[in-house]
């Protein structure tokens, strides 16, 4: 394998896994924008998404497409329950309290997942076949194309939602000015709930599409949350476009690092990026100039 094909191969791998970081990063941003909360249970939504899909398709023999949408709905409900039961009842909590709550929630989700699904690793069949496609000497598996395509579709849908629909605009209004939003007759409370549902749904989508490639088990969520968080920070907290670009970047860096240095350091790369960004440019690539 020439160095060129190697690099190309790492880029394909990086884009695939980077898609998931991008989506987790987007999930962080949606909740952050609507509420100022960093929801560290975001990675758990991905894990639950993958696991629920496994149960629905393998345990209950539901065909893939209805199971996909059912999974999204179930995980969105989990997101709503998290917000209603753990976050909404607090009046005027500090941000740090809420962050601790979301970390606690992620541990609870992990524990419940272990009780429900056990410690086994699960896999889903690829959506359309397993025959790799040869591109310039490097190979790309069909599922990678699904992952990339669905990620871009999700990003596009979110952009339309936030830019074109009144509901999306109302959510952005809550993000820019809560008090004014409430004076416009926007139910801020409901928008917060909706932001959790939306983030959870996006997490579910990424869980379903990545499980055929990277498998899924009960403790996969934590690392995904950390890497998605790194993507959100590198992109600039609150910036959707930033999170997507940064997610791909971190994915590529990770696969390059794994390939050229050692796969043992794979997980460290996102963390190094996270630390460097926080030291050098805390506002990230596309963040607003001021950070709260």
């Amino acid at each position, binding site marked *: 394998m020439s160095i060129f094909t190697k690099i190309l191969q790492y880029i394909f791998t990086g884009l695939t896994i980077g898609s998931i970081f991008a989506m987790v990063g987007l999930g962080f941003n949606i909740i952050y924008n609507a509420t100022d909360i960093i929801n560290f249970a975001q990675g758990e939504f991905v894990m639950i998404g993958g696991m629920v899909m496994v149960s629905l398709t393998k345990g209950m023999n539901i065909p893939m497409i209805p199971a996909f949408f059912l999974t999204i709905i179930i995980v969105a409900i989990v997101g709503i329950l998290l917000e209603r039961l753990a976050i909404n009842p607090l009046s005027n909590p500090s941000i740090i309290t809420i962050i601790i709550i979301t970390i606690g929630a992620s541990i609870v989700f992990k524990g419940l997942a272990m009780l429900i699904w056990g410690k086994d690793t699960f896999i889903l069949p690829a959506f359309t076949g397993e025959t790799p496609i040869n591109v310039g000497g490097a190979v790309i598996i069909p599922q990678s194309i699904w992952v990339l395509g669905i990620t871009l579709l999700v990003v596009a849908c979110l952009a339309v939602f936030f830019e074109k629909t*009144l509901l999306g*605009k*109302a959510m*952005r*209004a809550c993000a*820019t*000015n809560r*008090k*004014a*939003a*409430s*004076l*416009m*007759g*926007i*139910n801020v409370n409901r928008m917060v709930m909706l932001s959790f549902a939306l983030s959870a749904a996006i997490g579910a989508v990424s869980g379903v599409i990545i499980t055929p490639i990277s498998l899924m088990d009960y403790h996969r969520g934590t690392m995904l949350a950390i890497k998605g968080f790194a993507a959100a920070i590198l992109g600039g907290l609150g910036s959707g476009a930033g999170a997507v670009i940064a997610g791909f970047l971190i994915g590529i860096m990770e696969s390059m690092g794994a390939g050229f240095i050692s796969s043992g350091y794979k997980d460290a790369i996102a963390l190094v990026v996270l630390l460097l960004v926080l030291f050098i440019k805390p506002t990230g690539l596309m963040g607003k100039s001021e950070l709260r």
Partner: protein
Amino acid sequence: MLKLVSVSTYYGAIQALKGVSIHIKKGEIVTLIGANGAGKTTTLNTISGLLHPKKGQIFFQDMEITRFSPERIVSLGISQAPEGRQIFATMSVMDNLLLGSYHRYKRKTRRQIQQDMDVIFELFPVLKERIKQKAGTLSGGEQQMLAIGRAFMSRPKILLLDEPSMGLAPLVIKEIFSKIKALRDEGATILLVEQNAKAALNIADRGYVIETGKVVFQETTEKLKENKEVQRAYLGKGYKEVWE
């Protein structure tokens, strides 16, 4: 139309309103003047449902609305252009106005909303020129026009304006106040909170003076303007000897 009956509002243990009673009749401009920290904004936020009073009642068209949520109050027809304008800075002028109509936005009402927007563009032509611009890039006066326009987009039966003169040049204040008067002449009912008592008394029908959470005077504007205490404290009269 709107009536507050000895309303007391607290911030934690601090009592900001100590039994405020005011009323506004249909078609009036009523002004609430007072110094910083007198409780003007607190009064408006209590009416809007952002704060809930500990004691007292608020009635709107003979219905008690004391503990209603802000969104319910907006949909009943009470809309506020808050202090410091509070526009959605990262969004376009158009989106700001659209969000003003949030509570009544449906496919069926779209045309009506468009018409209301045209009414606002007629009143504030500069907003039409800036329709695609980000609201944060507007000048202070334009932002104030946008804030008023946005509040007006909910088709309020009563409009609450919190210090529309804040931070604006005298000429701009004059323009905005003449527009507020124009709104009234078209049938709007307005509660105007102001520190700039002179400007407010020039366009209002009646006024209340509020001091440390209590209403101390309530009169027609003519009588308020003649009131020695009001002249001294809010209109800067009676100090001639200092200047001459």
